[in-house]
């Protein structure tokens, strides 16, 4: 077998020049891409739903935390306000006349108790509302 360069070229071009994929390559590829596309869309939907759920859970947790903080502040406010209020009432009481003093002696404990119950009721009501509130649901 003698193979000069031009002959070698001819043989190599004949061997490799016509190499190509099979005729149905494009059809098979497009079918696979369609299948991939569907899987891709489903995956994207799942991911979006998961992200939305996570975002929702985070928002609910943040809201609950803010409510608890507000209630704590309200409770501290109530305690803080009740002390100067008590002092103000005692100071004002001493300046009233004998009738008022008589009434205060008679009803004083009831009035004080009602006032204390009223002040304490605000945060208690808030807590009760927080405990009994149904959780927010997306679906």
């Amino acid at each position, binding site marked *: 077998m*003698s193979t000069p360069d031009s002959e*070698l070229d001819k*043989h*190599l071009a*004949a*061997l*490799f*020049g*016509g190499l190509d994929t099979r005729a149905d*390559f494009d059809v098979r590829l497009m079918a696979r891409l369609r299948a991939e596309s569907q899987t891709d869309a489903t995956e994207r939907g799942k991911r979006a739903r998961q992200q939305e759920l996570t975002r929702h859970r985070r928002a609910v947790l943040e809201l609950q935390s803010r409510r608890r903080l507000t209630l704590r502040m309200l409770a501290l406010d109530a305690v803080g306000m009740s002390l100067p209020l008590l002092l103000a009432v005692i100071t004002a009481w001493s300046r009233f006349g004998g009738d008022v003093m008589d009434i205060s002696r008679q009803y004083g404990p009831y009035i004080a108790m009602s006032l204390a119950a009223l002040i304490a009721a605000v945060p208690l009501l808030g807590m009760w509302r927080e405990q009994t509130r149904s959780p927010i649901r997306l679906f």
Partner: protein
Amino acid sequence: MELVRAERRDEAIVQLLPAYRRKVFGLAYSLLRDREAAEDVTQEVFIKLWRALPAFDGRASMSTWIYAIARNASLSALRARRPQSSLSDAEVMDAVESSNPLPSADVLVERAAILRLVDQLPTKQRQVIMLFYMQEQSHEEVAAMLAMPVGTVKTLLHRARARLSASAGKMSATA
């Protein structure tokens, strides 16, 4: 690039297929030496491209990007499948035998012998020879496909052809 920006991946792939299918297949085939495996890799490469198209930022040229994906996919496939088959395993010869006009028996025998010689070349020389004759004998195109300087492609091609000529000469002397 416009289609990629518009997120019309399917249309982009339809446009890329005729331009790159044969090149990607050639790249895979020159390394794997198995037509079936090379077709599988070519399909995988186009699916990878389809998935990665939205992330393509255009910093590298599209062809550089595609060839890089094709080279990596071919190398992964090569690592995954051992032992290798050889080029002489019928497929190339089938293509040659089905060519028109049908070559004579002597020519077919000679081509089968050359195919065996190509198969015995070192990997880089074999790849360069195969791709050069597949890609309309363009040094630049082969260099881009193999990510090599054009000079290296020319050197490898020269060495491969010299080796093939010498081996063919030896075979004819012993015959």
